[in-house]
């Protein structure tokens, strides 16, 4: 019998366990909407898209070629912002990141768990889907994306797959 090593547990671990269980319950009850993700830079899609005339793919460069669309970071930003082009405070922050060669710690709003195979290429390139179907009219947002336009849930994915007559085999997405 293996009593020894597995069973030497001190009370504070018990406390942790209780806490953990409570936390699970709370977690279970909490609505998981990825709400108010605070972004390090008050980025305006509106300024870039509507005013600046940028296309989604200009910055989210990999949406047509890779699984991940990628969130642009300084390497992408520097193409236009090699020097200040406005008087915005946020651009100054950006330039600071660029000059210090630090990654902008963007908070990711849209994500799928790692057991889901989601490919932008498949949806954007092969499926010819508009970005707005999932992400909404991001271009009109003057503030950074803080919450999901459509909650990315399995049901939501599956509904769309069903209506568009795409495979709903578990192994089409799960892995």
């Amino acid at each position, binding site marked *: 019998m293996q009593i020894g090593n597995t069973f030497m547990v001190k009370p504070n671990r018990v406390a942790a366990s209780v806490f953990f269980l409570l936390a699970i319950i709370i977690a279970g009850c909490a609505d998981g909407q990825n709400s108010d993700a605070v972004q390090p830079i008050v980025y305006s899609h509106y300024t870039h898209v509507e005013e600046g005339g940028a296309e989604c793919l200009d910055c989210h460069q990999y949406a047509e070629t890779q699984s991940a669309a990628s969130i642009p970071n300084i390497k992408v930003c520097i193409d236009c912002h090699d020097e200040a082009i406005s008087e915005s405070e946020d651009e100054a922050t950006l330039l600071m990141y660029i000059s210090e060669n630090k990654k902008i710690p963007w908070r990711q709003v849209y994500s799928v*768990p*790692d*057991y889901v*195979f989601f490919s932008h*290429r498949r949806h954007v390139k*092969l499926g010819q889907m508009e970005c707005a179907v999932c992400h909404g009219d991001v271009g009109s947002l003057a503030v950074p994306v803080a919450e999901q336009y459509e909650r990315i849930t399995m049901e939501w994915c599956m509904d769309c797959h069903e209506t568009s007559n795409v495979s709903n085999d*578990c*192994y089409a997405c*799960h*892995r």
Partner: protein
Amino acid sequence: MAKWGMVIDLNKCTGCGECVTACKVELNVPVVGPEESAKGRTLLCMDILSTYEGEFPDVKMRTLPRPCFHCEHPPCIKVCPVRATYINDEGIVAQIYPQCIGCRYCQVACPYTVKYFNWTKPEWPEERGAALNPDVSVRPEGVVEKCTFCVHRLQKAKEQVAVEGRELREGDYVPACVESCPTKAMYFGDLDNPKHMVSQLKKSHRAFRLMEDLGTEPKVYYLSEVE
């Protein structure tokens, strides 16, 4: 629909264990450590079975690589209470980790013992964390896992093929073990497609499957050794 299957030529296999390692690395199969291992909790989605025949000095050691056999009539899927394991249209016996409740019934029902349970939460050194295969999920604790025929490669291959605007060809999709076999003893492809090597090899007089009498119809064929 393709019926994916594998042929392992035992005459070519030397039992080097590369397929096992390749599988562990590719599928992010956790290393459980010495204590857990001593309890018999080593996870080997791909394994090599070894047996000795005869007595000294006329002994023969036989090695047999053992993936999941992806039976055409898998006994494991019938007993799954939540559909976490099922056989899909392409003949791959799936294990959906987020669906599995960890009852281990499938593990118990599998006559080949190819299913493994994550008894503890997989742990990786912090340094290694970022270098796991991003194509495969990290299993949570408490679920059953198994060889998936590297289905993540199929998912990617299908997409790649669609981008290139062509049909899936032999070799577009092979599991990690087949890809890395140094002696090229493993073949993979569509068993129903007469053009694929596997569908020809399975008709060989050397071809056999394990425990055919059970009626599970494994999709992994072996080619026996030539004496």
